[in-house]
Each structure stands twice: as structure tokens, then as C-alpha cells.
């Protein structure tokens, strides 16, 4: 009951934030001097990128948490944040070319930021593919290991690709001299960031609960398959029972 209330409240807040952010982005924020109205895609592009990076970082932390504690909750959080992160990263990769075409005259260029975002996307898609194809309880450990590899790779990817020429604008926010946004643009960015962050959290919450439910169903099936005598030793999910359990203790 309490959970339903929290959920409804959360949904209403998210909807409100998104609606207000839409108003801010399309009406309140002034039209950009050289690019015109196309620039308004910025209010979606940038918040999505930030949220995606935040979620990938969450995935990294949750994976470490899983390897240390071996709790299903940590793994569910890692899975949820990676999935939602990939969705947000996809939005970044779609809105980017839509904006680049009228402004730069091209859809895509192998520039530092574009390429590293694409590589980031590839890494986390491969993480999701691994989760899909791995079987049994080992999935979680393997996925957590891959998540750590992926996250460690990010700075190296960025360093290597920065060595190419850069077409993407330097950071407009806190980027140095001549950079900066109109205060009204700022508020549009922040409201959209708040709206989409809230939306992402909502999705993660749902996905997290779903993952926990999936785990519970799987465990119930495993217990049932083991038969009635298994319930007395319910702590052992090992179906074959032949191999002794080694190194599976949480450290």
C-alpha cells in the first residue's frame, strides 16, 4: 500500500518535472543566435548524456558492491542501471546526428566525443549481451567482472580518441573564456536534467523490482525441481549436487 503510494507520487512528480521542463525548453529559453530553433535539441541531448554517464557509473559501483557482498540486490541494481543507461545513451546518439545535420552539415563524424560515446554504448551493449547469454547463477559474477573491465576502459577510450581532431564544441558550460549560457537556457537545461533524471530513477526502480522478482521466481523453480527433500537443505541451490562448492562463499 505504502509502496503504491510512493510509486504514484514518484510518477506524478516525474510527469510534472518533464512537463515544466518541456515548457522551459520550448517557450522560456530564448532562440539561439546562429543555430535557431534547432539548438533546442540541446536541452534533451545534454541531460541524457549526463544521466547516461551517471548510470554507467552506478553500474560500476553496483558491480563492485556485488563482488564484495554477493547480494542479489546489488546485481539487480547493476542490471537496471546498465539497461536504462544504454537507453539514455541511445537517445544521445540519436539526438546528436539530428542536431549535427543542420548545424555541421553532416550526420556523423569520427570526432572524440562522438566516438567515445559510441564506444561506451558498444561496451555496455556487450555487457547486456553477456547477461543474456550467460546461464545460471554465475551470470552475476561474470557480468560484474565485465562491468569493471568496461568502466576501467572508459578513460583509456577517451584518451585514445581525443588524439584525433575534435569537431564537437568544447564544453559550453564551465569551458573557459567565451563559453557560457544565457541564464534562461541554463534553467531549461537544469529542469530537463531534473525531469529526465527522475524519469531514469523511476525506470531503474521498476527494472530493479522486476529483476528481484525474476530472481525469486528462478529460485522457486530451482527449489521445486530439487523435490521435497531439497527444502530441508534449501540453502544449497546446486542442482547437480555432485561437485563440492568451492570458492562460492561471500568474502
Amino acid at each position, binding site marked *: 500500500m505504502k509502496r503504491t503510494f510512493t510509486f504514484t507520487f514518484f510518477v506524478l512528480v516525474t510527469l510534472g518535472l518533464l512537463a515544466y521542463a518541456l515548457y522551459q525548453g520550448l517557450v522560456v529559453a530564448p532562440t539561439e543566435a546562429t543555430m535557431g530553433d534547432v539548438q533546442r535539441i540541446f536541452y534533451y541531448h545534454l541531460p541524457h548524456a549526463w544521466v547516461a554517464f551517471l548510470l554507467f557509473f552506478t553500474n560500476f559501483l553496483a558491480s563492485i558492491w556485488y563482488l564484495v557482498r554477493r547480494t542479489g540486490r546489488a546485481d539487480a541494481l547493476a542490471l537496471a542501471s546498465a539497461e536504462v543507461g544504454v537507453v539514455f545513451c541511445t537517445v544521445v546518439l540519436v539526438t546528436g546526428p539530428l542536431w549535427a545535420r543542420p548545424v555541421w552539415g553532416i550526420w556523423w563524424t569520427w570526432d572524440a566525443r562522438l566516438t567515445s560515446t559510441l564506444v561506451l554504448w558498444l561496451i555496455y551493449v556487450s555487457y547486456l549481451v553477456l547477461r543474456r547469454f550467460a546461464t545460471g547463477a554465475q551470470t552475476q559474477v561474470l557480468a560484474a567482472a565485465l562491468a569493471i*573491465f568496461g568502466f576501467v576502459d572508459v578513460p*583509456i577510450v577517451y584518451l585514445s580518441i581525443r*588524439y584525433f581532431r575534435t569537431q564537437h564544441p568544447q564544453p559550453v558550460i564551465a569551458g573557459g573564456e567565451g563559453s557560457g549560457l544565457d541564464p534562461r537556457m541554463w534553467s531549461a537545461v537544469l529542469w530537463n536534467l531534473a525531469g529526465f533524471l527522475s524519469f531514469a530513477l523511476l525506470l531503474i526502480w521498476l527494472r530493479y523490482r522486476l529483476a528481484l522478482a525474476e530472481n525469486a521466481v528462478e529460485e522457486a523453480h530451482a527449489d521445486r525441481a530439487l523435490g521435497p527433500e531439497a527444502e530441508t537443505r534449501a540453502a544449497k541451490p546446486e542442482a547437480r549436487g555432485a561437485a563440492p562448492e568451492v570458492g562460492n562463499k561471500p568474502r
Partner: protein
Amino acid sequence: MTVMAVARRTLAKDLRLEWRAKDAVNSMLFFALLVVVIFSFSFDPTAEESRRIAGGLVWVAFLFAAVVALNQTWARELRNQVLDAYRVSPAPAVSLFLAKAVGNFILVSVLEALMTPLFIVFYNLRSVGPVYQLLVIAVLGTWALVVNGTFFAAISIRTRSREIMLPLILFPISIPALLAMVDATTSVLTGEASPRFWMQLLAVYDLVFTTVCLALFDTVINAE
């Protein structure tokens, strides 16, 4: 026995098996040969052009061929539950990883040594920059491919579609290393730029991922 002693024995065993059967080397060599020939048909470059694209061709061919060998790394240990026996033995898991990684490094190096003359012949290659730099790049680059490849092969062997899984998880992570190898090789071959940055990047990549592999291998091999 110490970590190194176990690693040495395991490596010796693997190399002896490979020497007698030559499974990995033969399939890898033939595969790389096919890639070279097919690339050569598809691009048909002049000497000047081939210098520019050779870095990419060589490393893509080696990468694909290395995957063939990497996929066989653990397959042998699954038969007769050798891997399970290893896990219950007191031998450190890290030595097993080191032995496998070094074994793969030797295999891929042999492949590179045998394939390089072919590349030179087919693509009419002549390096403008100093050749010893290519050797350093080859060592750093091969280790970069092999160390993560060995680790990810241990992951992919436990999934449903074993052989297909390895490139799917290995390639995205290896993109910066591949970029560094290709660009370093191209800058040496054309003599137009210094490969310094890329060689440093490769060294950092090797160092970082060797550390991560050694740290996480025990966890992955004991995953149930």
C-alpha cells in the same frame, strides 16, 4: 609450489600439447592466410596506399586469427573436468591465468612472425620509419589482445553460445588498444608521425588490464 612454478609447469604442459597436436596454430594460420588473401583481392592497393592501410589490415587479420586461438584456450580444460580439478587443488588461480595468457602470447607471436613476410610480399611493404619500433608495437599490442582475450575466453566459455560470445565482449573493450596498434603501425610505416603517444597508450593499457585480470581472475574462475 610458488605462483611462478605452477605457471611454468602449466605453460610447459600447454605448449607440449600444442606442439604435438598443433590445433590452435594450424587453424589460426590458415584463417589469417585467408584474411590476407581476401583483403588483398578486395583492396588491390599500390605500394604507397598499402603503407597507409597496412597497419589496419595487419592488425585486423591478427585480431581475428587470435580469436580462433583464444577460443580454444579453455576448451581443453573442460574435457574430463580438468578445470574443476584445478579449482579444488591448492594451486593459485593466478598462475593458471598467467600460464594461459603467456601461452596465447607465444602462439599469436608465432602467427605474427609467420604472417608478416606474407604481408610484405602481398602488399609490397617497405617501412619508412625504424623497424625496431614495429617490434615494440607488436609485443605491446599482442599482449593487449591476449591478456583480455584470455580472460574473456574464461567468461565466454561459461555462456550458452561459447565461441560467438568472445568477440562480442572482447572487441568493444579492445577498441582503444586496436586504435593504438593500428595508428602506431601506420605512423611507423609511413614515417609521417611519431608513434610515441600510441606506444605509451598501449603500455598503459597493458599495465591496467593485466592488473585488473589478475585481480578478478580468481573470482571469475570460481563463479558458480
